[in-house]
């Protein structure tokens, strides 16, 4: 399985109930991405949060999944590794035609920071 920038986060535990899997995740404020995002003001890059949710979905599906389409992703509040050291990722995967529909959210301090609806695929096209 692909884990881009593994130092961005670590999964503490996970549990599944009613087709939803909840991951408890610790964000790492020493991740080198914060050297550039932004200087003296660490903010989690939105795409890294999306990638983290896709990697959680890959764990649920037990295969590497790739983004085919982001139908909608809303960012309700900034996520920072200092204010949001502990977060939960809520993952629901539903088969849809040849892909998987991911409905996911990130919650911290009882606040939803991000919600995502995306189609994921096992076999992305690779440009030759």
């Amino acid at each position, binding site marked *: 399985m692909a884990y881009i920038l593994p130092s961005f986060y670590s999964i503490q535990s996970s549990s599944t109930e009613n087709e939803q899997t909840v991951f408890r995740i610790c964000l790492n404020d020493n991740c080198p991405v914060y050297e550039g995002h932004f200087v003296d003001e660490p903010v989690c*890059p939105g*795409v890294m949060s999306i990638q983290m949710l896709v990697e959680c979905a890959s764990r649920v599906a037990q295969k590497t999944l790739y983004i085919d*389409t982001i139908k909608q992703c809303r960012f309700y509040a900034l996520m920072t590794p200092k204010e949001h050291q502990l977060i939960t990722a809520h993952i629901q995967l539903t088969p849809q035609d040849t892909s998987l529909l991911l409905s996911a959210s990130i919650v911290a301090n009882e606040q939803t920071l991000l919600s995502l609806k995306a189609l994921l695929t096992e076999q992305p096209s690779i440009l030759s």
Partner: protein
Amino acid sequence: MLEQQPDIFALIPQRPPIMMIDTVIDASDNHIVTQLTIQEDNIFVENNIFHEAGIIEHIAQSAAAFAGWQTYNSGQPPRIGYIGEIKNCHIHALPKQSHQLQTHLQLMAQAGDVSLVQTQTTANGHIIADCQMKISLKAQ
């Protein structure tokens, strides 16, 4: 085409290792064209393939560069732009290391510090992604 390419460090607040634009080749009040050549050590490259998150970050930074361009000539530091929403973002194909990405961004609507933009991204001339984004600029 711009006669002189602007200093990318003056246009966007992102810095290595997460700088996903090399150059701005064209810009106006309602559009911008950016480029990125995918280097081997890019953090979004794995097994020679540039992953979706890297493409989306490149698009988001194109929007940041567009915002930066609006204040570039005033000599102000670039304002930090945050993604508010991503919609209908289709990834058609994943490029590889050494491919050159080019993103055309068009401003669709603007209200205060919030901009709605539409983008199309090619890699070595092949369309690899289309996307809509809402970007909010941080208050100064």
